[in-house]
């Protein structure tokens, strides 16, 4: 066998061993079924809800001018919303006065506004650079 395939099959086998270790540790839990439900739920959440939503938003961008910048801004904004969402929708009071101390809703709006401003500036600058050049110099 070539060295590359030795590495390949070695990595695959090691991967199976690590999965086995994880599965064995999971089976040792008091409620492995509860974990399985959440694992399956993670797939449903992504494949069934999040990905179709993202694709639907993507359809709105097809063929638009400045599509790349708009898509970049949406990826940044979407990531920020996802990461902040648990802070905003977590039920109950914070576990102690120094946990979750910031005004997250306000801060998210500020950061999203900054994303919009940066995207707008990039679009304006790019359009300005690409404007039709009238050659008035050099003659």
């Amino acid at each position, binding site marked *: 066998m070539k060295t590359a395939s030795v590495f390949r099959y070695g990595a695959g086998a090691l991967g199976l061993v690590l999965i086995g270790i994880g599965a064995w540790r999971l089976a040792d839990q008091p409620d492995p079924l509860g974990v399985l439900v959440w694992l399956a739920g993670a797939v449903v959440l992504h*494949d069934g809800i999040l990905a179709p939503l993202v694709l639907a938003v993507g359809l709105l961008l097809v063929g638009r001018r400045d599509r790349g910048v708009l898509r*970049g801004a949406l990826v940044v904004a979407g990531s920020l919303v996802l990461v*902040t969402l648990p802070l905003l929708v977590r039920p109950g009071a914070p576990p102690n006065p120094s946990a979750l101390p910031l005004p997250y809703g306000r801060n998210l709006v500020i950061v999203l506004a900054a994303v919009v401003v940066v995207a707008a500036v990039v679009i304006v600058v790019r359009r300005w650079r690409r404007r039709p050049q009238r050659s008035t110099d050099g003659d």
Partner: protein
Amino acid sequence: MDSMTSRPPGPRRAALPALRPPAFTGRLHDARTATSVGRWLGVAFAVCFATGLVSHYLQHPPDWLANHLPARPAWGYRLTQGLHVATGLAAIVLLLVKLWTVYPRLFVWPPVRSARHALERLSVAVLVASAVFQVLTGLLNIVEWYPWPFSFVPVHFAVAWVVAGSILLHVAVKAPEITAHWGRRSEGTLALPAEDARDRRSLLLGTGAAVGVVTLTTVGQSFTPLKAFDLLAPRHPDDGPQGLPVNRTAAAAGVSVPGLRTWRLEVYGPRPYTLTLDDLWAMPRTAARLPIACVEGWSVEAHWGGVRVRDLMERAGGRPGRDALRVTSLEVSGAYRVMEMGAEYAEDPLTLLALALNGQPLALDHGYPARIIAPNRPGVLQTKWVHRLELL
């Protein structure tokens, strides 16, 4: 990415055209994009796994390791756990973009071509489930939200092995495709439509920007030079009594001032003794600048003042460097009420039974009358409201 689909078997397909798999006309759902994002995701998960193992074994060392866990560098755990949470947050962005590039493969037709194909799809399903589960549970854990019926720490640890294993397996299965699309001039990349290259760069730039902005607005909770940008992290390094965040308050631990009136420090060893708080304050004190670094990712450096643990051990007839220590807190219940520290930690001249924080006696929430502060150690093991030390 692909995973289980529940589509009718082949023959019914013609009769039910409405159930045909969706067609994806969008660009960049290709192997070059998947490789470009996938390798960064691989790096992020590798860092998460390695730093997670560090955290796990610092908290639950096997017996043969317990006395040899290194107390230096003092900032070690601050770095590894800060990285763990920061790369975990970055992995959320990278994982979602990676899954977006390969999403159409979820609907390949026929869903299963061969036994090998079925196994490959199963392995990808395990990868997707465990990876999404892992970043989701991690994200909810740092905001201390536990909506699931299991215990976070052992399950997050177990699933980490599944994620690491499925990534290795996935890379092994896809090795030829990854190699063919590794570089801009690789064979497989050149076979893709050339006009996509520019669009791909733009997507990667957007992804990089998202990772950058998420990191910038959260990493200040542990990387304090950037704390001015800490807008969206679950903690702020200055927010808490005496300018330091708290993980478990005295009220939550069932510790109150009236209960402390009769407080004594009991030290057990060959020559056991008891000290009042005044006795402790009268002992030679050491100052140390040490970080407190929480498993949830935040960390802050502070000025601590107190008595060296090794001095307290020697007074009880202990042998620093050889004896381990058991520390018991006044807290009524909790997984960390009793803490053991290996010989290297107990011996370290920076390991203190701290009485003061930033020049003031400890606040009750920071462990008044006395707490442990040691270098390179998870915050949950910096036991507060200490009332008993036992040489082991």
